[in-house]
């Protein structure tokens, strides 16, 4: 199957060529072609997914491989589609050749992660993805990029140790063989034997993988890199960064299920109706939803708001994964798809806004719906999707997650998920009103609408949001093929879970009818009434410059004051302090050990001789 390596390698090659040939028009064409090839090939390979699509190669003693199954096809398509639109967006916003190289390199990395057949290919692709995305951030902000890189590297090395332990004990690295080894181990334990891996070792491997995938997915408390990294880079790239790369972490968790499910269940049992190891993931996911959501509401910078929103949404996916039933995992993957679609769209919109206005904070925006109608329409679709309003795709996936969690009788998780939805509304209102409605600052009078590449990219994602929302069964049927049974029944317009039903087409028809009725009423009777601009009022509180709360500035300051105690707990500061103490320890160690005094050095030699003598006797 020679297409598989082409799918993975072509973005990198295109990126390298685009970097090498610095001519402006050619570089864009090569870059877009590089991201189009994987998409085209993936679509071409779709009909042959039933057969095993594999590609293996022996490299320096390792058997590296790529495979395409239903699961990996779904994730690869997310990467290819959102990646393609992000690269299209970069035509307008990219500032130099390096950005093309590294953006495409990270696309190669993430495709490699999704299509990996063995642990070494997985690790290599993971590192390439991390390195490339780090380089995209490095230029904009050194502190943010180093924070991202260090946390990611710690995660990646944790994964390496886990891989090394697995390899040392089982002697194999390919996914099917590792999966078999763990299942056999689980069976042996169930029969009362001792198995290859002890309980501590299993816990260690689970913990290491949790660390690795949690960092990439942005799970609490490992999420601290995400707000800075997502905001301090080319915003078209963030569409891919947030939309696709975080899904690598999600895919990693699914891999945990595929490889080690039996073993983990046998070792750690169940908690309520979910497997214990899954409940930990789901609970941390729930915390992520809450933390991400509240912090998103408190932000004054658009990019940061969406960065925290991304973290929050990944929490949903983790809750779905953690619950562990076929329905919840399908719901989680569905949300991964819809999140990639609407978050990708959001970041492209943010990229457009910054590109056209140069502003990033809410206080500088206002009234842009009139000047940028196309972008506003796209934003409207994205807002409805994230808020979970039918008939858009965000509703379908959120509904599935709710249903899955409730069906398993998990009230705490259910509460967290509902809270997430509510807080999502809260920060979206801010974005909706502050940017698009209301008074327009005078320096935004000349703002033009989105440039063509960004418009096309947004259009693609927007259309997909609508299509998958109205016809959610298209996605559901694909997901069913992963499990090979109709977990979500119904046709392409309807999702039927047995205990609940959602018909996208029906809802759309009713909504259209409703809008028509409203339009008729409007055109018949309602007039526009001009209202003079008045002062805002604050329920009896005096308005001062310090406490001037408007939708565009400090709108949620009261919330911040209420949460002041909780906001003092900052994992960001904790990691920063840990790193500082490591650096200080390093300096102290160096001053003591390599202190420049040759007599001390000679004594070191004497100490080693003494140790050698003691060992001999």
């Amino acid at each position, binding site marked *: 199957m020679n297409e598989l390596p082409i799918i993975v390698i072509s973005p990198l090659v295109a990126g390298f060529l685009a970097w090498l040939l610095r001519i402006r028009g050619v570089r864009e064409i090569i870059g877009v072609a590089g991201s189009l090839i994987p998409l085209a090939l993936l679509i071409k390979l779709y009909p042959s997914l039933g057969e095993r699509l594999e590609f293996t190669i022996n490299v*320096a003693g390792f058997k590296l491989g790529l495979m395409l199954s239903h699961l990996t096809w779904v994730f690869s398509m997310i990467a290819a589609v959102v990646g393609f639109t992000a690269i299209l967006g970069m035509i307008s916003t990219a500032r130099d050749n390096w950005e093309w190289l590294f953006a495409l390199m990270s696309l190669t990395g993430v495709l490699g992660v999704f299509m990996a057949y063995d642990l070494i290919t997985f690790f290599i692709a993971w590192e390439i993805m991390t390195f490339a995305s780090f380089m995209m951030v490095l*230029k904009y902000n050194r502190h943010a990029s180093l924070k991202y890189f260090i946390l990611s590297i710690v995660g990646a090395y944790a994964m*390496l140790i886990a891989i090394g332990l697995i390899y040392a004990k089982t002697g194999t690295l390919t996914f099917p063989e590792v999966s078999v080894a763990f299942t056999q181990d689980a069976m042996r334990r169930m029969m009362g034997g001792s198995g290859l891996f002890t309980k501590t070792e299993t816990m260690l491997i689970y913990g290491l993988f949790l660390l690795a995938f949690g960092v990439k997915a942005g799970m609490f408390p490992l999420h601290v890199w995400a707000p800075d990294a997502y905001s301090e880079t080319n915003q078209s790239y963030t569409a891919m960064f947030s939309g696709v790369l975080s899904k690598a972490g999600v895919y990693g968790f699914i891999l945990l299920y595929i490889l080690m499910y039996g073993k983990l269940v046998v070792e750690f049992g169940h908690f309520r109706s979910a497997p214990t190891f899954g409940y930990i993931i789901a609970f941390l996911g729930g915390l992520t939803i809450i933390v991400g959501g509240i912090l998103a509401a408190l932000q004054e910078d658009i990019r940061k708001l969406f960065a925290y929103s991304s973290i929050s949404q990944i929490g949903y996916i983790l809750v779905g994964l953690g619950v562990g039933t076929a329905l919840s995992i399908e719901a989680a993957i569905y949300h991964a798809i819809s999140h990639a679609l609407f978050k990708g769209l959001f970041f492209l919109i943010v990229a457009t806004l910054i590109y056209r206005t140069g502003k990033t904070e809410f206080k500088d925006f206002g009234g842009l719906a009139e000047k940028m109608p196309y972008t506003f329409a796209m934003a409207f679709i994205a807002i409805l999707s994230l808020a979970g309003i039918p008939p858009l795709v965000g509703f379908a996936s959120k509904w599935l997650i709710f249903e899955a969690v409730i069906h398993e009788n998990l009230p705490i998780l259910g509460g967290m998920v509902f809270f997430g939805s509510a807080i999502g509304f809260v920060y979206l209102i801010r974005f909706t009103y502050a940017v698009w409605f209301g008074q327009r600052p005078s320096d935004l009078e000349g703002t033009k609408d989105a440039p063509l590449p960004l418009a096309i990219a947004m259009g693609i994602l927007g259309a997909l949001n609508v299509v998958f929302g109205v016809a959610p069964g298209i996605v559901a049927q694909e997901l069913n093929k992963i499990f090979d049974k109709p977990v979500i029944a119904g046709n392409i317009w309807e999702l039927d879970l047995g205990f609940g039903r959602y018909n996208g087409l029906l809802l759309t028809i009713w909504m259209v009818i409703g809008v028509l009725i409203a339009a008729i009423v409007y055109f018949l009777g309602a007039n526009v009434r001009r209202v003079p601009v008045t002062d805002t009022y604050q329920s009896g509180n005096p308005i001062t410059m310090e406490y001037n709360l408007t939708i565009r500035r400090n709108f949620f300051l009261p919330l911040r004051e209420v949460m002041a105690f909780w906001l003092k707990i900052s994992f960001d500061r904790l990691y920063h302090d840990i790193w500082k103490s490591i650096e200080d320890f390093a300096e102290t*160690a160096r001053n003591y050990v390599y202190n420049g005094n040759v007599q001390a050095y000679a004594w*070191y*030699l004497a100490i080693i001789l003494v*140790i*050698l003598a003691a*060992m001999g006797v």
Partner: protein
Amino acid sequence: MNQVASLLIALPLISAFFVPVLKQINKSLIKPYLVLITLIQTGIAGWVFKEVYTTGKPIIIYAGGWRPPIGINLYIGHFAALFVLIIAVVSFIMAIFSLKAVTTEPIDKYAMLFLLLMLGATGMIATGDIFNLFVFMEITAITAYALTAYNKTGEAAEASMKYIVLGGIGSSFFLVGVALLYGATGTLNMAQLAELANSINPIVAQVGLALIIFGLAVEAELFPLNAWAPDAYQAAPHPITAMFSAFVVKAGIYALARLLYLLQKASGWSSILRLLVIMATLTVVFAELSALRQKDVKRMIAYSSIGQVGLIALAFSLGTQAGVDAGVFHMVNHAIVKTLLFLAIGYVGIAMGGTTMENFEGLGKKMPLTALAITVAGAATVGVPLFNVFWSKLRIILATLQAGFFWAAVLVLFASVVEAVYYFRLIHRMWFMGGGIRIKEGVIAGILVILAAIIILIGVDPAPVWNIVVKAGSDIFNVANYVKNVPLVGVGS
């Protein structure tokens, strides 16, 4: 025809002593002469490499025609052939670099010492006799002492003094160890020592091995015996630092590994291995931590080099075939990467007038090719895939975990994280801080780009190099084969 290989030793030796004659003729001929000699050495080494790898048989030279163990023999197997080539190539590049980088007088002494340093390292790797190893080790060490002090600054003299003291102690103990083994076995030939290792008094064997390893560990820069290294690397002339890092320390590690595996039948072998694992892990950790707050880039890279050498030592002290293969692979990769780094830093040093952090600001605009090469080498050292060190580091970690040393792997990876921080800080400083106008970069930049291309090439397709490395690794690990290949004349027992 195989006797041509003996030129590897003879050529540098004769040409070194020819330099004073050359000085009388014309002083400005000395540096080009150096380039010529290293070029010829590279040619011979390339031929030897081809011979050994195509026939698969080691080249054995009898000094004076006397068969071992009566005479001294050179054993140029897969490993030696590979490394003699690396030594020759690095020396050649550094000879070219010396044309511009070394201007301190007396240049004729420099050329002599340079050639003798190359000779010493080549001899250490190519020899098959333990006392001969000592002789070449002393040649290497003494020329290294002299070259460290070559720049004639106070700092250089101090660094050289430290090196002399520590190196001297180490060599003395090495000699005591050799004497013990000679007394117990009656032979100095390495192959015969391997045969007789388990038939001598176990205490003598253990003590002898321990002292030999101790002596070599000073040269091989293992913690805490490597304290001389940062000073020596920083104070030495730029080409010499590159040579120290690329092959002098590697010759020490090679000797350590070779003797360790030859004497594996000695009792107490596994506890010595464990000690070496601890020392190697601590080398990596302390070296990388010390590099973190350095203000001088040359010293920072020196610490990084020490750390990587610790990694190689860790791989060798695992006691498994996988570990040895991984170690040899890392030796090759590290030689390429550190040659590039020290060459680039030296180049910046002479172009910008110093190697402190401030000189590197805005290098991306002033010397973009050099900055690109440093970026590639830095990303490679951290262990990013698509670069060569990734493969060797991966193998070392897997081998360490397979051998059961969990904490060593964790500490080494922690050190890797620290390494990433200071390399990327340097890269950020080069490209995104400060600015300047473009300076013309000459031949050196061309060499840097070629080396960077090799790094990426090996990173993308490691298979050819890996195949060579596996053969070299089994040369060290497979002692029975080694002994079999040396035609020992039966002389008493």
